């Protein structure tokens, strides 16, 4: 059985079909890249999987569980947002450890685990930094560490490397690919860059292959 299954999802905004019968399956520890031009519904599909948007039709499954009507916070689906969405009123470590705090992990332990994740993304020693003063690349890595620290069963990556200069982009793409493989993470990557998809993902699909809307 596939680990993540998106089954015939349809969603309309006003009178426009953004997704029509969109269907996608992702195996455990597989990283699938969703490719497509702007407005093709890539981000919308991620938001449906995360539970941020409710589809008008279709269903989302993780393993044998239908999660379509579960609220976001009960899905165990992590998401790295295009613009990071770091919490500006929290320090870097508090951002990374926020999911652990919500899960009730004791302070000492969550700081230790958070610091370990910062180390893994190459930001050891950044614990006390103010997130609004991080560079673009650092902020991306903090956002990634924050999502991975909760060990979600599926990770959604919404153009996580957009807006970085070429060199940093390429370096982070390799780092991201390594992290996903090392930790056997099931992930869906949204990108419009086929080269990035080749580096990070194990399989690429185009939106027009999985979605019936125009």
């Amino acid at each position: 059985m596939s680990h993540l299954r998106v089954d015939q999802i349809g969603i309309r905004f006003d009178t426009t079909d953004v997704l029509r019968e969109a269907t996608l399956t992702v195996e455990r520890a597989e990283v699938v890249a969703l490719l497509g031009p702007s407005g093709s519904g890539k981000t919308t599909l991620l938001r449906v999987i995360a539970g941020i948007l409710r589809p008008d039709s279709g269903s989302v499954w993780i393993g044998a569980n239908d999660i379509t009507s579960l609220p976001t916070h009960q899905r165990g689906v992590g998401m790295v947002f295009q613009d990071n969405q770091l919490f500006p009123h929290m320090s870097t470590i508090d951002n990374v450890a926020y999911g652990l705090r919500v899960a009730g992990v004791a302070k000492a332990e969550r700081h230790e685990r958070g610091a370990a994740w910062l180390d893994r993304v190459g930001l050891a020693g950044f614990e006390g930094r103010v997130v609004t003063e991080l560079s673009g690349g650092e902020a991306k890595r903090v956002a990634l560490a924050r999502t991975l620290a909760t060990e979600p069963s599926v990770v959604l990556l919404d153009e996580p490397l957009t807006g970085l200069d070429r060199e940093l982009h390429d370096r982070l793409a390799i780092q991201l690919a390594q992290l996903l493989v090392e930790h056997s993470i099931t992930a869906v990557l949204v990108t419009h860059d086929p080269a990035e998809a080749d580096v990070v993902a194990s399989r690429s699909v185009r939106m027009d292959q999985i979605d019936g809307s125009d």
Partner: protein
Amino acid sequence: MKNGVSAANRLPRRVVAALAVGPIAGLAVFYLWPFATLLARAINGSTVADTLSRGATWDVAWFTVWQAVASTVITMLVGLAPAYIVARFEFPGRQLLVGVLTAIFVLPTVVMGAAFLALLPDSLDRTVWAVIAAHVAFNLAVVVRTVGAFWEHLPIDMESAAATLGASRWRVFVDISLPLLRPSLSAAGAIIFLFTFTSFGVIRILGSAGTRTLEIEVWRRATQLGDIGGAAVLSVLQLAVLAVVVGWSTRAQRRHARAVDLRPEQDRRRAKSPGERRFVTLVAIGTAALCIAPLAAMAIRSFRSSSGWSTTAWTTLGKAEVRPGIRLGLDPVEALVNSIQNAAWATSFAVVLGAVASLAIAAAGRGGRLLDVGLMLPIGTSAVTIGFGMLITFDTPPVDWRAEWWLVPVGHALVALPFVVRTTVGVLRSVDPSLQDAAATLGASPTRAWWNVVVPFLWRPLAVGAALAAAISLGEFGATSFLSRSGGETLPIAIDELLGRTGSLLQAQGYALATILTVATVSLVIGVSRFHDVTGLAHRRANGQTVDR
């Protein structure tokens, strides 16, 4: 040049000075002088010691503070839910709900007092709970507009990000939204505290001997007990507290302001899940009911008499003698006429002074800022303080103006002037300065260019300012309580007197007058909102955004 007209084409200084002289003189005579008189009366060792050593003074001060804190906290708690749905959801009647809240906020204080007097059961009348309930409904708009406006620009994805990390809705609210909303919460809290701390009209109608605020006590000591010195000390004490609160709020807002990337556009959506739909519907209907029920009760009570339903209160409004032998001592219809006359004069004063002041401020650059700040001062001073200052200043020849017909409208104009200036200056400042340079290249003198290019922008915001001034004058109660004389009662004064008497007919007449005042004020506010795009335009221009028209 980016800011301002080039030096060569600027309006000549003498013209700017001529424009500024009227507003400066008005401010000096009718605000600064009375204010100085008040301070002089208050700064007197024995009066200060005498007033501050009285236990009653501290009882009043304590009551003033705690009712203001309680009113503020409850308003904030009640207001968060409507602020949230207005910020985050698109639903039928959303604009209407915001409109109703705003209309309630601009209603005269005596009307709000009368409305809650009509709504609440007798057991709650004249209690602090009635006062707090009225304060809450009155100030909900502050929370919804201040916090809601901030909330709708907070990135919704930040809340979603917390949800993807496992945070429930409540956790998201407590951990993410609430801390980020803090600047707007402190702003709204400070405004509500200031309004309720200086509450006068609501408490005059709904309060009792045990529910006296500093404002009420100033009025009572000055007009009922003749203790001018004591009243002056309390006025200054109140001003000191207000200054501290304003200072604290400014600092708190600065301290909590975070570098959040506020979204330029709003992110509202329709409620999708049944739970969301239920929540939005309940909050919208509950909020609307809280606002409309008291006003409806007030209108209904104007048709109630001791023997049941009756239109007597309305049909006998114009008769000074209600029944043979029973005289009112005041004529409700005359009060209505007085109010209209006062409003007409106050509006004229405020509009003329406001217009020339705004033109001077916009043309004068740096020097204009001083005048701008000076004209804002009456907002920071309570209307009671303004009226009291005028009363004790203009009471001896050659300036014994207490009996002059124009003193009440001048007091009203002083209260309304800051609003006229704020509405107008923004629009004038947004006029592209290079237009004046362009006119000069076509042969216009600096004065001619200013007259042809800048002055035409004045009329529409001035119309908005005029409507605001009229609404303020119609409902003004604090300053009028000091300045109006027997026979010259205005609507709010008449409402207060009628509701303070026994007898169902007199009460019903009080409610009838309050209903008339409500309709008049709401009509003026609706008139203002038709010109809303004027202020919106100025706002966008001030932010350097382009405007598509």
